[in-house]
């Protein structure tokens, strides 16, 4: 049941982000009021990256954590994907940086699903928090 719920929510999220990407692609044509313009296509890379990481994380979550909350990951995927595309629309350079962060965080999530125990997160919470803060500042 959790797998189906999560899967359907992610499908809706994918449709939402596809439409968002399509709108961004067509936005120069709307501005110029003609089809004969240079279309922006780089945001499709962001959508592709999002799709790859989310599909992989969804596969791992449903296989290794069948009792996981089915709403949390789709909600996070929607917000992060939406944010990624919005930043990409404003500035592709910042968008690329955001995509990098999205990739890092998704990889950590995917790696996290493979852990047998997550007790060390609680044990070293302040060290991890400090490392995360320094990592954010360094980039």
């Amino acid at each position, binding site marked *: 049941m959790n797998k189906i719920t999560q899967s359907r*929510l992610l499908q*809706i*999220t994918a449709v*939402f982000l596809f439409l968002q990407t*399509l*709108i961004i692609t*067509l936005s120069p044509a*709307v501005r110029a*009021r003609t089809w004969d313009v240079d279309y922006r296509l780089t945001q499709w890379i962001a959508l592709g990256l999002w799709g790859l990481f989310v599909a992989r994380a969804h596969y791992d979550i449903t296989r290794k954590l069948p009792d996981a909350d089915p709403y949390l990951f789709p*909600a996070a995927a929607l917000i992060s994907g939406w944010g990624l595309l919005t930043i990409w629309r404003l500035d592709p350079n910042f968008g690329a940086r955001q995509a990098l962060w999205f990739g890092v965080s998704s990889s950590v999530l995917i790696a996290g699903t493979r852990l047998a125990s997550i007790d060390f997160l609680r044990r070293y919470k302040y060290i991890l928090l400090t490392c995360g803060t320094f990592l954010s500042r360094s980039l």
Partner: protein
Amino acid sequence: MTALLVLILRVALAIALYAFLWRIFLTLWQDLKQQGEFLSSQKKPGIHIHAVMENGKDIQHRFIQSEVTIGRDPNCDFPVMDEAISAHHVRISYHHTQWWLEDLNSTNGTFIGKSQVTVPTVLITSDQFRCGGTSFTILVDLVDAKLLN
């Protein structure tokens, strides 16, 4: 034309966003409904108490509530006019899918056979216990075991 197309896409975008929220709301609502139905279906079995007093007089009652007190006090669920029974002598309660017998620090004690009840004890159908000069027999209603689990 391009503006119209993008407007349609934006409307579709908004619909997709609301569909996402609606889907979450619907699933949560169905979960809550299922949980409610499950809890309401968890029936507890009724209990039939048959008391035989020293003078041979017998009284019997059937209870569907989860707690029954027996004693000399008329406010008890099952009042028994026996001088050897305390005002609030014993409690029979349903929890953890079983009926339990618990002595309420009575003066003359409660006995199952010859052993005194000092800790809450599980009761099953046909069990007998004695308070003062009155002996009680318990009959538990049969309920679908699937519901109890």
